[in-house]
């Protein structure tokens, strides 16, 4: 299935919104691209599963530097010294908010989904795969550095 704009736009809109309100930064979108699975991640990667009318995966990839800055802003300016448990929880919650917000928007199109808890993978060399699916890449340029969002979605069986 080709990813329809209707399904992707909610994620884009949510990412802009959450980056602005919680990440305290503006973002611009780079060139969208189709990437075949598995994709090579970044230093910090957060994967969230989508279940319900759609099934698939959303993966947020960012450098450690960007993650630390984003975590600090999410934590209301708390000095974040390293990517510790607290910082990771902030990055998880960022990904969670974007996905939760996007899923809510899909609900208003009568597509009802739930999300699974974020899984955080740290370290270079992380690859993420989605069974039988290609990923759509949304590159975002933010004041904190680049955030790449990979989305693989399909309509659920039955």
């Amino acid at each position, binding site marked *: 299935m080709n990813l329809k704009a209707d399904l992707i736009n909610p994620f884009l809109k949510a990412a802009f919104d959450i980056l602005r309100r919680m990440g305290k930064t503006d973002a611009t979108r780079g060139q969208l691209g189709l990437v075949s699975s598995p994709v090579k991640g970044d230093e910090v990667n957060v994967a969230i599963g989508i279940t319900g009318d759609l099934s698939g995966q959303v993966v947020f990839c960012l450098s450690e530097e960007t993650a630390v800055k984003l975590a600090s802003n999410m934590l209301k300016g708390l000095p974040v010294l390293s990517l510790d448990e607290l910082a990771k929880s902030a990055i998880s919650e960022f990904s*969670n908010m974007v996905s939760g917000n996007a899923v809510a928007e899909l*609900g208003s199109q009568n597509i009802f989904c739930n999300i699974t808890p974020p899984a955080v993978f740290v370290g270079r060399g992380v690859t993420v795969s989605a069974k039988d699916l290609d990923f759509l890449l949304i590159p975002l340029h933010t004041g904190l550095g680049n955030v790449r969002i990979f989305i693989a979605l399909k309509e659920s069986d039955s």
Partner: protein
Amino acid sequence: MKKIKVTQLVPGMRLAEDIFLPNTNVILIGANKELTVDVIRRIEAMGISEVSITEETEEDSKEEKEKQLIPLLMKNHERAVSAVEEIIKPSSDYPLEEQVIRGLADDLLAQVEVDSSLLLNLTHLKRYDNYLFSHSVNVAILSILTGEVLGYTREELNRLGVAALLHDIGMMSIKPEIWQKQGSLLPEELEEIKKHPLYGEEILKAGNFPEEILAVVREHHERCDGSSYPYGKQGKEISFKARILGVTDVYDACISFRPHREQMTPQQALEQLLAEKEKYDPVVLNAFVSVMAIYPTGSLVQLNTGEVAKVIKVRKNNPFRPELRIYYDREGRRLEKPLRLNLAEDKYHTLYIDKTLPAEEHRRIMAELADDFV
């Protein structure tokens, strides 16, 4: 069982009856299923206007258990406050006995082990007239919790607790008219107040307290940027335990009721600390935030779906996903019975805390909820 409008459904409620696909006997959503955001949306989209929900939830028994613990913890807290009063009042026999205070700190440690987040609720809600003594107990509780995150041993936590319980003892050497004064202090009165860390050190020296505890009492008002008193010490010149107290002392003072200024909400107090982060040790601040979370216990928050809830329990290192008690549905109607919901549970990940309520609204709602304790 009771019938309610679909717009009054709140995640965490349970259906009392099956919902069928319109004009069929195909069950779409089974009875007793705990409602998640997507299921509620689905019910709404089907054009159903009313559903029946059960009034008992699984969380109720947990809630009952906690309710039984509260009076006990409250009593212990009150007892600790009067014990501190007994011990540090000038009328009592100086020099102090270290052993007595150590026992008191041990009691607090034991309570932290029973249920630290219920205890946190108490530090937020129990506002005594005898500020100085309840403040000492609260700072001890907050410091012990922060020390735990920093990996302190029980013995170290005990010493930290002792220092916290005694940190303001020097106030006893100052005329009560000054430290109990309503309204702002004269310059000379302020100068006198600024001596309380040194007065405290003197009292404890007479009691042969170890230097480690003397240092905390002497330095608990010093700030990492060198901006404070009595010596204007900076960063590492300040003993580490005193840097812990620097944070917990300010936080509790902010959320306490004080005659000369408006009481802050837990959220405001946290923001105040973070706004002046150069004054505090970043390691301590991090530990403190992982205890208090970014929406501290007692905060009123609004979910992305619109419901208004109170943060009742936070878990270490999961600052964004506390346990909540929902009081108002998404259209602002007060629920007949508050509904408990744990944001950390997998099925509730589409929900998130969108914002805290502004201080004014916080105060209004807290007054409305006054009958509901924790």
